[in-house]
């Protein structure tokens, strides 16, 4: 018992406390000027903005994938179900080099896209693609069990009361999936914001254009500008705490909703 707490504090609490203590060594003005410098602001904007957009794509595509996996039977369904976990399991650096080589100008997908005039690798679109890759299992694995457990009777009731399929899906089924959908969205968003390995290869890493916040932390560290690195880290950490807090709240909300129907 005491051992657990000691170990946890040694391995988790002390390092994180160190991070905040380091930030308090700065005056607020110093902290503020670092965080609001053009390059930092742009990196944060790119990280949070693209993560949000990628999580939205994951939300829509994740729902479609869950629907196909749970509601329909087709050849290879089990295989595709297992495949969803690959972004969880594949080391991020491997995902990074693979996506880059796939979407590079001579890559399997990069070449046809280049003919259409779309450049993916080494642009913000590349970051966006990597973030979609890394986030998709979160939405699918959060929503899937809920759709599996959903009572068929509700649908039957809606149908027997004269609702057409469109109404049943959008007025009856989707609303009861909302807590799970939002949780999946938040998890995918949080993961994309902090993602490093799968993004940096494909990003191009041009300051102010395609430089994500975690990379800027690494750059500042290699320049021995510890204060800058720490300040950016604290901003990101606070943001991800807020997201986790929101997720926990969502899950509590979902639990109170279930007895209601």
């Amino acid at each position, binding site marked *: 018992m005491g051992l657990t707490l000691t170990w946890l504090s040694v*391995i*988790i609490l002390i390092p994180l406390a160190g991070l905040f203590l380091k930030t308090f060594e700065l005056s607020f003005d110093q902290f503020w000027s670092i965080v609001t410098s053009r390059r930092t602001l742009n990196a944060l904007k790119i990280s949070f903005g693209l993560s949000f957009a990628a999580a939205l794509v994951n939300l829509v595509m994740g729902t479609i994938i869950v629907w196909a996996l749970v509601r*329909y039977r087709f050849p290879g369904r089990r295989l*595709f179900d297992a495949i969803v976990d690959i972004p969880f399991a594949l080391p991020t650096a*491997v995902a990074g*080099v693979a996506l880059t080589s796939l979407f590079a100008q001579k890559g399997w997908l990069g070449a046809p896209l280049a003919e259409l005039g779309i450049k993916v690798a080494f642009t913000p679109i590349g970051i966006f693609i990597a973030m979609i890759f890394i986030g998709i299992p979160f939405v699918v694995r959060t929503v899937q069990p809920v759709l599996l457990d959903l009572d068929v009777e509700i649908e039957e009731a809606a149908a027997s009361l004269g609702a057409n399929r469109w109404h049943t899906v959008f007025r009856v089924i989707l609303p009861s999936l909302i807590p799970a959908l939002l949780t999946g969205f938040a998890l995918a968003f949080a993961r994309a914001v902090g993602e*490093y*390995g799968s993004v940096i290869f494909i990003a191009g890493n041009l300051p102010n254009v395609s430089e994500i916040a975690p990379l800027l932390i690494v750059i500042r*560290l290699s320049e021995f500008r510890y204060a800058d690195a720490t300040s950016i880290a604290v901003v990101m950490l606070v943001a991800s705490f807020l997201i986790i807090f929101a997720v926990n709240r969502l899950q509590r909300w979902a639990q109170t909703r279930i007895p209601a129907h």
Partner: protein
Amino acid sequence: MTMQSGLATSPTQLRVYAPTADLDVASPPSREQERARAIVSPRDSRTEPGPVRFVIIALALTFLTVFVVLPLVVVFAQAFSKGISSYVAALTEPEALSAIRLTLLVAAISVGLNLVFGVIAAWAIAKFDFRGKTFLITLIDLPFSVSPVISGLVFVLLFGAQGYFGPWLQAHNIHVLFAVPGIALATVFVTFPFVARALIPLMQEQGTQEEEAAISLGASGLQTFFRVTLPNIKWGLLYGVLLCNARAMGEFGAVSVVSGHIRGETNTMPLLVEILYNEYQFVASFAIASLLAMLALITLVVKTVLERRLDEGQIPSDD
């Protein structure tokens, strides 16, 4: 983490949704339902029209193929693009071998430590009530939600030359940062949640009755743990160890910050993938990457098997 896949799906559950004739066999319709069906066509009300179904399946499969399958295929295609001999040559380079050795060492250290402390943490949380339990659970989950780069950064702040323990370590000539201990520490931090997370729900579900029985029959604490608790949680434990190991071997961001990238000394496999890639040694880079991809695939297969075991194991405890 919700890693339970749809493999738990019971076939009967799916049959209900399938627009086939055994729908009626599965549940004989009541008179009210029959009347309702006379008004609304059952085909339209229970599932989507054929073309819609087709579009949804096509969208799902295309998306998964483009975003998940193709990247995986590319790794192997690139690794073998110059033939098997250059693939083997790339993997037997001294640099590659030293990276493989380091990765195995770091994974062994972090799996070992997290195994012991993950079990203790899960035991404490699942079997005892105490103040601050929610806080403890949040603490355990924390490494999942922190950017790997930040996980590495905190250890630089602690052990770096300007860090809190840096001067003391330097005075005693102990190398943590840019050396194996730092890499191991960062990996332990990042992989801490896996074992505890896999065990907590399992141990909570099993309750404390069996342990109480064992102790009242005169078993010592350790005997109770090894004879009663451990056999009950073995599949869950394996599941946690499996995911912990996969992440430990594949961790990139945190390790990259603390490693210092000393070639042949502090490069793990993922770091070597990056270095070789940036040097345009694509075959060598993808050869190492293919080993990691195989690790991921094996992990997924074993995970699927373990999930089935865990589902089966839950049936008797439900009774």
